């Protein structure tokens, strides 16, 4: 995945006189092509379970990366917002629990779900931005826990402990969107779109202002920017990504229950974003891929090593700790450092370019 390069071969290195197509770095073509022909290479399980899940978790973690990397706010409520999105699709759309589900068509249910999830995310953000830095983690963790307990206790709307099952994607264009290849392309489309939009926003005035707010809120406020509004808007955007991810997640497993948006999954999203790296939007997808691979295959690996397969959490925890300890910028940070080292002149010790 090292082919993505945020700084030099990326879009930043643009020269005048080229068309926009020529300005897309070659790495994007390669990765894009590989991802597009993946269904010809990989089996159904790989497509649906590994890649589909990677793209979904990556999309949810992408929102956290946007908040944390560009806004300096680490929120643990992303999974709850995704959960709200999934629940709303189940409540307004079709599910097996037809006493609660309203059974509205998808083109009504999905927009409503997205809007409600964004409202929830905005409200969370509005509460969270009243505090700063590490307080944000505590408050969003508490909000995530509150949502989990509420969904588990509430039987009128959220159907309590068991949640909803039989939540399926609509049969649009006569395609079964839960088929491996179709679901792969569906998740790939939204992940790629989310990735590109985040990349675009990071260079748009809003994204630049947000990074300014991250680096020095007082100066930005002195320059006339509304710091609070920028932060809350960042939460709103991040919750849109989470909501899309949450709906896809619900479709993938065809069900949603409080456990989907529990405290464990909420922390997992943070783990994914941190392992991948919060500096570039590709980080969450790398992190999600590692997480999904570990979660799927670690049990087998542990069993062959003679350990009980239940020790999966231990593995994840140690991986997380190692990354946080030695490379705060995640895998991307490791890659950057490796390249810096390679460029460095062995005699003078000076870097190839720049400070």
């Amino acid at each position, binding site marked *: 995945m090292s082919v993505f390069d945020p700084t030099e071969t990326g879009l930043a290195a643009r020269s005048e006189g080229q068309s926009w197509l020529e300005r897309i770095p070659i790495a994007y073509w390669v990765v894009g092509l590989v991802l597009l022909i993946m269904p010809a290479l990989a089996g159904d399980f790989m497509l649906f379970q590994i890649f589909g899940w990677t793209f979904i978790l990556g999309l949810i973690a992408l929102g956290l990366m946007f908040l944390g990397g560009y806004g300096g706010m*680490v929120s643990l409520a992303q999974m709850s917002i995704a959960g709200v999105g999934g629940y709303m699709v189940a409540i307004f759309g079709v599910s097996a629990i037809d006493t609660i589900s309203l059974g509205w068509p998808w083109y009504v249910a999905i927009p409503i779900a997205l809007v409600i999830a964004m409202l929830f995310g905005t409200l969370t953000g509005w*509460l969270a931005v*009243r*505090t700063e*830095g*590490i*307080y944000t*983690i*505590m*408050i969003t*963790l*508490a*909000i995530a*826990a*509150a949502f989990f*307990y*509420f969904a588990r*206790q*509430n*039987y009128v709307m959220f159907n309590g402990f068991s949640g909803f099952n039989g939540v399926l994607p609509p049969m649009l264009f006569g395609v079964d969107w839960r088929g491996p290849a179709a679901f792969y392309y569906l998740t790939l489309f939204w992940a790629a779109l989310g990735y590109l939009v985040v990349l675009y926003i990071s260079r748009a005035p809003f994204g630049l202002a947000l990074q300014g707010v991250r680096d020095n809120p007082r100066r930005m406020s002195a320059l006339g920017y509304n710091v609070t509004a920028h932060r809350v808007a960042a939460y709103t955007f991040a919750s849109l990504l989470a909501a899309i991810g949450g709906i896809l997640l619900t479709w993938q497993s065809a069900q949603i229950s409080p456990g989907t948006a529990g*405290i464990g999954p909420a*922390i997992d999203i*943070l*783990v994914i974003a*941190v392992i991948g790296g919060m500096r570039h939007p590709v980080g969450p997808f790398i992190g999600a891929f590692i997480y999904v691979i570990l979660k799927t295959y670690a049990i087998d690996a542990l069993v062959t090593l003679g350990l*009980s397969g*239940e*020790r999966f*959490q*231990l593995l*994840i*925890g*140690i991986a*997380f*700790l190692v990354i*946080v*300890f030695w490379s*705060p910028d995640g895998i991307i940070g490791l890659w950057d450092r490796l390249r810096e080292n390679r460029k460095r002149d062995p005699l003078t010790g000076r870097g190839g370019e720049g400070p």
Partner: protein
Amino acid sequence: MTDFARRHPVWAAVIAILAAILVWMIFALWPSWLVDLIGKKKVFLNALFNGITLGGLYFLVASGFTLIFGLMRNVNLAHGSLYLLGGYVGYEFAELTGYWLLAFPAAFIVVAVFGILLQLVVFRRMEGQDLRQTLVTIGISIIMADLMLWGWGGDFYNISAPSWLSGPLETILVTAQKRSGDLVYLKYPLVRVVIFLAAVAIGVAMWLLLNRTKIGMLIRAGVDDRDMLSATGARIQLVFLAVFAFGAGLAGIAGVVGGTFQSVAPGEDIRFLLASLVVVIVGGMGSIPGAALGALLIGLAEQFGSVYMPTYAVVLTFLIMVGVLAFRPQGLMGRS
């Protein structure tokens, strides 16, 4: 307190009236209309006392959390794991020696030593990097939770109190009047009362330590301005170590208390981590009196919630938190 009354006369009056109503509800014999309205007095009194004693337990957990946070700006999200570790250690010790009281110093020492190790090996290396420290504590709590699950399994352990503490305590509070005219008095588990009194004693001792001794002066100075304190030549690393050990040890003691009140089991770490988060958010970060007030409020809310609106008891505590955040983000006792 007079200062508060002078500045907010209306609020002071409201609080005084509420307190008077509460006192009347505790001591008076309830008229029948009140019983019809909210049920038996016994239920009310039990919820009240359970809430207060639960608040004592929450205070034990949260005061260590808030002390560590106030001094080191380190949101120790592994605090729940320290609580759980204390519970398991206390259980093993009580089983091994047969003395319930021995479980407390054992849990305190073991968990405090563990806290010292954490501070020496982990947190000292990344001083001043708040976010990274917090992320590391998340990693530690994931690993500890799994290791403890490995070691002790998913069973529930109960630390049983000794026989001289296990009986009920006859209180002087009247719950009802029999037809014959005899008064029915409330009985309440003695162990809960004792543990609550111990929690109060620990709280008072902490307050005295912080406000009346030289070490306390150092800690308070560190809370206000860490850099300036170390510039004056105080050995701040030692203070950090001591506070971390003490806060962790308190969590360990709380684990034994929790194991006696309820049980020690996987998942309790998250529960008490969340409880202490909510308590310090409500009370005000880094403030010991705030932790006491917050713990009392949350304990009462949880118990009254589970009696009078059972479905949404847990949500009630979070509603309190959201309300405090919306109107007083620094917490009830916090300084902005």
